[in-house]
């Protein structure tokens, strides 16, 4: 009888300790999760800013300004344009 009781006691203590450790582990993992989620939000913020940056840099108004003013590009006039008809394209005239 005593032996059974001792065994049960040992099992009980083991269970209690494992509960404590798993609880502790759960909390620690949760902190990690929170941290990762915060990082996710930070990355989302950065993504939004990058999107904004991309569309701001890529706006046609800005592209054209640089092309005209810095690169000194210009649209060719109709007189200097040649339309090449592909053999299979029908209805395209020179």
């Amino acid at each position: 009888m005593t032996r059974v009781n001792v065994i049960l006691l040992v099992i009980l203590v083991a269970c209690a300790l494992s509960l404590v450790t798993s609880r502790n582990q759960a909390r620690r993992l949760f902190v990690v999760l929170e941290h990762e989620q915060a990082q996710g939000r930070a990355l989302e913020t950065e993504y939004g800013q990058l999107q904004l940056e991309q569309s701001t840099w890529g706006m046609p108004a800005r592209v054209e300004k640089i092309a005209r003013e810095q690169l000194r590009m210009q649209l060719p006039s109709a007189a200097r344009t040649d339309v090449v008809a592909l053999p299979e394209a029908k209805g395209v005239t020179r």
Partner: protein
Amino acid sequence: MRNRDAAPLVLPRFRSPVVFGALALLFTILLGRSLYLQWFDNEFLQGQGSARHSRELEVPAHRGRIVDRAGEALALSTPVRSLWAFPDKFDATPGQIAALAAILETTPHRISARLDANEDFAFIAKQVAPEIADRAMALRIPGLHDQNEYRRFYPGGEVTAHIVGFTGDRDTGQEGIELAQQAWLAGIPGSRRVIINRRNEAVEDVAAIRAPQAGRDLALSIDARLQYLAFRELKAAIELNKAKAGGLVILDVKTGEILALANWPTYNPNSRNKVVPAMMRNRALTDTFEPGSTMKPFTIAAALEAGRVRPDTVIETSPGTLTIGSATIHDAHAEGALTVEQVIQKSSNVGAAKIALGLPSATLWEMFSNAGFGTPPKTGFPGEQSGRLRPAKSWRPIEQATMSYGHGISVNLVQLARAYTMFATDGEVKAATLFKTETFVAGRPVLQPETARAVRHMLELATSPGGTAPRAQVPGYRVAGKTGTAHKVEGHGYGNKYVSSFVGFAPVSNPRLVVAVMLDEPSAGQYYGGAVAAPVFSNVTGSALRMLGVPTDAPLNNVILPPQGSEIREET
């Protein structure tokens, strides 16, 4: 220990039951109270307990983006932070304020001024980048708090301002699509309950109370490249002609989508300090004007449909005036006998009026109404106007005559562009929309295909050297269109101010785009639609067709301009 020598203590017999009973009663009360607290009145204590160890956190949800048809962002939200304080609890050393000012790129004096301005609550910095806010919070100034917010940015700035609109406080739409599509774009913030430790860090999730719902993205029919092109050309034309205002609309003939919608004057939605309401109006949709001669093709179409005339029927327009009752109609340019085709080509008011007077007023009204005049265009934009088309019964003959060339009726620019889809297609009017349309859109048949083709041919003649708008021609593409030069109504009559317009489409062999241009009060000498608005049409249409990769349908040397000064003029 009991003293044996003492006399035995005689206790009253009831004493022990009374003590026992009293103690039992007290225990019962305690037990009852604890049972009551445990099972019946548990809310208060549980609430107090969880208030000490759990907290409800808001989970932010961002507002959806507005993108153009290719996915280019026209409006998007990025997280920002605002720093605030209760001035009486704000307790910083001068050194800390100096450090804060350095981080926020301001002066310590300004920060103090903000704190002094309001006793209860003060923003130290509004909507700053998150990393700046982090650095400011790292100073650990007592009483300095921060809050998360979203700020809306508009990369397109003044180019797309009128279509997209803007949001006001608390991220709600105030103008344009931002207002109309508030429910679709808005995100619903969620919340969750967590257990916190004594350092206020969340250590365990208890429950998600509400899942956050992010706002949905919205794709517009606008093509950012064409929008910029339209804006640039419109702005250049307004500066060249010293016009007061203007608008330009590009419609896709196949789907009815609005590919570009530019207005002047405009504003920058990203900084609205100096904006007056007049700049914010989307004139192409919310303002109406008398269209003038751009209405003539509808009159002619009604007469062709009714079988009253054929394209080669001859109408006598000399001596260039027509008197109806007490009023007289003038042509800017007296012509002799003109065919119906030439009435459009040379834009004869007398010719159009004579054709209109040969029709029942109900027939003309039906044509205008079917073309979409007098009803709002239903593009999905808030506050669009329907224009004015009075019921046919109330028309007097002089009104029927003037309406045939676009006076006594008012329209907005999108209505006008949409109505022209009936000539660009084989007689179908397509519903104009501001939203991207993936599927094929069937139009509403209004004209017989033969009528549509006949009018299309007349409109092409109008842009040829004998017409009113040779300057609308585009190298490499056949174009068709009609000018308008309308006197503006001032007070009770017509003054010497004009609205110059041009509506046309291209390429004629298989129309893809309808382009409508309107300039309000050009005042640099020129005011004829053919001189002011047609060149804008030419530039925009040519570039737009090339950008879209539409095959050319004419030789590149197709543009033939008449000698200077010999252009056909028109008034109305």
